[in-house]
């Protein structure tokens, strides 16, 4: 019988610059149990509904997280639009879909880079982030921001993306796809990379379902659950299938995310081809105030995110609540960590694509 020791992991740790803390109970080199604790960067953003009116809350929602910024703005606007019975114009729906896919691409490229960094493949990490830079440039051209886009508003979009800009995006997508083909090969074929990923952190489909997992983490366990299939924004008009893998391990999660980047490029092309003409927003009169409550779900790059908004007929909301994918994935992470090697902990923490800023808001 070996002795047990507890090793604190985080809040500052080698995986990513976000503060998650795990108490790892070890028996020799094996992790027996992982006890998570979060709450290091709680900022009380949901409480700001008392001080900011429902139009200004869009900016607060966008600042929940730097990576899923666009999705948070979209989810919040979608909920408020449903309460106010606003019909978002078709062009705005398509542009929102296109921008969400662009956001998914940049989030997954960031994750691939971090993964390469976690197993020590520095040059691959740099290559991934070089491609991500091109995606961020596209964001800057379209919205004027690289991290905080400020393009969502209640009733549509704040600025139109003109057709010639969309045409330029199409050619940029081609070059990104070329780069991605080169970068994704080492992740899929390289034996050294496979050694670190295959059969590491198995999450069976039953466990994934039981623990309420979300996003690529769930789909890598073979369950085809994607909120985009519900057809919010323009996803109903777009031809796509949720990407799954039956590997259930870290390799499967990498594979799902790589395929999702290709799928995002495809969806963006479809959006650009089908882009309807017309206005991008419906005007909201100053005396038009939300009254009622609504819950909406969208597919963030990291998985299903839930937005709940309760309004009382004044310009200040009663409640705004966000449940983020990382929050849903932590129970499964704890399950996966039990029984793994100590050296695999950074990779496993990374495979859920943790976003602690989102989780704690």
């Amino acid at each position, binding site marked *: 019988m070996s002795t047990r020791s507890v090793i604190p992991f985080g809040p500052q740790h080698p995986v990513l610059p976000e503060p998650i803390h795990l108490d790892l109970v070890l028996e020799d080199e094996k992790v027996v149990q992982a006890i998570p604790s979060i709450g290091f960067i709680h900022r009380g953003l949901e409480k700001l509904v008392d001080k900011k009116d429902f139009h200004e809350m869009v*900016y607060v929602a966008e600042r929940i997280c730097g990576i899923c910024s666009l999705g948070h703005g979209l989810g919040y606007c979608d909920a408020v639009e449903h309460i106010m019975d606003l019909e978002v114009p078709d062009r705005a729906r398509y542009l929102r879909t296109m921008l969400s896919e662009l956001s998914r691409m940049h989030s997954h490229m960031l994750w691939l880079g971090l993964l390469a960094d976690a197993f020590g493949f520095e040059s691959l990490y740099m290559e991934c982030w070089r491609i991500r830079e091109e995606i961020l*440039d596209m964001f800057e051209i379209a919205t*004027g921001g690289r991290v905080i886009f400020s393009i969502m508003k209640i009733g549509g979009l704040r600025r139109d993306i003109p057709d010639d800009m969309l045409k330029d995006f199409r050619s940029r997508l081609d070059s990104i796809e070329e780069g991605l083909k*080169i970068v994704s090969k080492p992740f899929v074929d*390289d034996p050294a990379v496979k050694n670190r990923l295959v059969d590491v952190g198995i999450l069976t489909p039953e466990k994934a379902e039981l623990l309420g997992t979300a996003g690529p983490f769930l789909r890598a366990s073979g369950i085809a659950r994607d909120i985009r299939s519900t057809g919010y924004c323009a996803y109903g008009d777009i031809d796509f299938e949720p990407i799954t893998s039956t590997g259930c391990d870290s390799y499967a999660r990498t594979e799902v995310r790589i395929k999702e980047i290709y799928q995002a490029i495809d969806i963006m092309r479809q959006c650009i081809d089908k882009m309807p003409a017309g206005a991008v927003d419906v005007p909201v009169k100053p005396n038009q105030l939300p009254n009622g409550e609504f819950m909406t779900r969208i597919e963030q790059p990291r998985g299903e995110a839930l937005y709940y908004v309760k309004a009382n007929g004044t310009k200040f909301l009663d409640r705004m609540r966000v449940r983020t994918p990382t929050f849903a994935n932590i129970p499964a992470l704890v399950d996966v960590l039990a029984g793994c090697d100590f050296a695999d902990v950074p990779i496993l923490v990374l495979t859920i694509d943790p976003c602690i800023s989102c989780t704690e808001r």
Partner: protein
Amino acid sequence: MSLVNFNKTVIKNLFSKPATRKYPFEPKEYPERTRGHVVNDMDVCVLCGLCSIKCPTRAITVDKAAKTWSIRPMSCIQCRCCVDNCPKKCLSMDNHFTEPGSEKVTKTFPQSEKAIAAQEALMKAAKERAAAAAAAKAAANAQAPAANAAAPAAPAKAETEKKED
């Protein structure tokens, strides 16, 4: 093996231009839409104060008595809300970021002489118009009773009579 594939990329990178810029010597060219900082054209601004009401972070203050427009750049989140809501279109978003500073300052801009003069001229013209309109109304009212007496009774005229009482 795929590692050979990646070696190709590595060798290519050795002989190609770097993806990065030598930053301070090679400044970045920002796209047109980049939200750098808010600029106010004080020659056009009428200090209506709509920007300060719409600003989500209350970074803008408008002092109508002192005729100044001020902004706290450290509070500004570059959301472009003020620019979208400006009725005179004097606010705009410059696509360059402000210089870094060591302390939180409030930048205050006085309304320019030109804008004050233009606004005063407008006010004067408006006052004159109002005075002219009032005079015309008074004249019309003075004529009205005579016309009313001659013409048969109608609801509109009844109202004018009431006003006179």
